[in-house]
């Protein structure tokens, strides 16, 4: 198991190196002189030239990339923000917790709602409950995150005045963003749980378990759900990527100081080092979640655990 984790961690390195390389070269070819951006339009050409020389902006591409990577690996340094003049890593440290909290709460919301609804839908296939939940799931999948966010704000903070529409200080502030971000995942997970449960629910071993006189709850949860979990975990893992992406939109609706908003603001101010850092940190988070999902398989399914050895 440990060997497997080590191998997977090693495999993450080339992917992340690739991400840094692609993002670095993309922003390198972006039109516009970084020195000009930092110093402003009023700076003299000499000052700009001096800044370029000081910062090593005149060096060849690979030298610049090498320096960026050296600073990143040795000092965890992602460069300096053009607009705030602060180290990018500090900006990210300030913003990352909010994004993680938001994504985590949305995921929790999606799992807590999606899995039970999916199970009940599968047990009572074609019942009114099943029809309704599938109809809602279809709507949820087609619902744009940002529109749902606006509608929820309209209903719960403008009309009813129950929940705050922006800010991020109390748990109350988290409800609307987490619900609007998680809604789509609820839909995906519900559908996945239902179809995956339906596949196992008519199998012989379930009949055997019932025939043995096991409690219906035990049959459904231990025997059926246990075997239906793998596709559910897979889809939940993939949803996490969608949540990280969707967080960009949600953060901007609810004025949450997270990575997504940081990136959007940075692009508008042409602050490329910050954009670079943001993309990298999200890719890192996503890769780690994917690894965790694969490890979770082993806990759920002993057959997979045996393969990891």
């Amino acid at each position, binding site marked *: 198991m440990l060997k497997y984790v080590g191998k997977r961690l090693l495999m993450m390195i*080339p*992917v*992340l190196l*690739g*991400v840094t390389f*692609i*993002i670095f070269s*993309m*922003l390198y*070819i*972006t039109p516009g002189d970084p020195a000009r951006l930092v110093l402003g339009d009023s700076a003299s050409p000499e000052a700009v030239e001096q800044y370029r020389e000081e910062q090593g902006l005149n060096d060849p591409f690979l030298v610049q990339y090498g320096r960026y990577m050296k600073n990143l690996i040795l000092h965890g340094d992602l460069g300096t923000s053009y607009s705030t003049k602060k180290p990018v890593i500090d900006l990210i440290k300030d913003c990352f917790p909010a994004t993680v909290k938001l994504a985590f709460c949305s995921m929790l919301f999606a799992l807590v709602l999606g899995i039970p609804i999916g199970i009940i839908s599968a047990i009572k296939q074609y019942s009114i409950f099943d029809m309704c939940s599938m109809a809602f799931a*279809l*709507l949820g*999948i*087609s*619902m*744009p*995150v*940002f*529109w749902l966010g*606006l*509608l929820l*704000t*309209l209903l719960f903070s*403008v009309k009813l005045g129950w929940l705050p529409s922006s800010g991020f200080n109390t748990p109350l502030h988290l409800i609307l963003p987490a619900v609007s971000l998680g809604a789509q995942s609820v839909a995906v997970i519900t559908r996945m749980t239902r179809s995956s449960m339906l596949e196992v629910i008519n199998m012989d071993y379930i009949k055997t378990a019932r025939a043995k006189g096991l409690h219906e709850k035990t049959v459904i949860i231990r025997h059926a759900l246990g075997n239906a979990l793998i596709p559910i975990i897979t889809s939940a893992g993939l949803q996490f*990527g*969608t949540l*990280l*992406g*969707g967080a*960009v*939109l949600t953060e*901007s*609706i609810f004025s949450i100081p997270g990575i997504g908003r940081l*990136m*959007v603001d940075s*692009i*508008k101010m042409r602050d*490329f080092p910050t*954009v670079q850092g*943001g*993309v990298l940190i*999200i*890719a890192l988070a*996503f*890769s780690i979640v*994917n690894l965790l999902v694969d490890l979770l398989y082993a806990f759920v399914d002993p057959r997979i655990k045996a393969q990891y050895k």
Partner: protein
Amino acid sequence: MEKKKKFAQLGDIWKRLRKNKLAVLGLIIIVIIFLVAIFANFIAPYSYDQQDLLSCFQGPSAQHWFGTDEFGRDIFSRVVYGTRISLLIGFVAVAIAMVIGVLLGAFSGYYGATVDNVIMRLMDILLSIPQIILAIAIVAVLGNGLFNLMLAVGISSIPHYARIVRASVLSVKDQEFIEAAKAAGSSDLRIIFKHIIPNCLAPIIVQATLGVAMAILTAAGLSFVGLGISPPTPEWGSMLSSARSYIRDYAYMTMFPGLAIMITIFALNVLGDGLRDALDPKQKK
């Protein structure tokens, strides 16, 4: 003879698709949206950028079905013209992704070894960034605007096509008819384009249908945060973005563009799901 067989196949698919009521509903909605886009200038009662400062913020009425916005522009007309922009973005972005993705996937699967390794590792790298974040990064490089947005959304969905095509190529590459084509002296390119890609069409069509929905949604999201299309172009996402400032007093402004996005995405999703079932040979009876 050949042609007849193809039509028979299409007929089979249509027969199976027709049984799925939701998919048919999706298809009907898509056709209607297409007609609205094509005949937008006949349907819309006003032009999309015609301002009338005397009638700003008017709620829905007989004159302005969806009301007017902060510049007195008719929201119904803007939503109608918006179908053009959204469909354009959806289809062009998917076309970009499909052409590049299918080629990469086909070469990767067909040649294997180093080519496969290089292409697929590159795809892994792109897949390790959530799609909308990748699109944002590309927009950061290219800048705002309609074409750049289509390019960004298109490039960021290339890996999905490459992976699907590669998997299907691997499943057909060792079959006899490919060997026969090789023995007959066909060139690699001919084999890829004439024999392999046509055999992988089913999953590509399904992915493309769902991909158009994804592309429209991503583009609307980017416009919503101000990284896509900016006013006065009537893009649904950017319309929502400006409506957001007036949500306290003029909530109707946020309803219609959002509804338009949702209906479009819904139709494409159910059609895609239906096509997946109809094209799946395992379900043939």
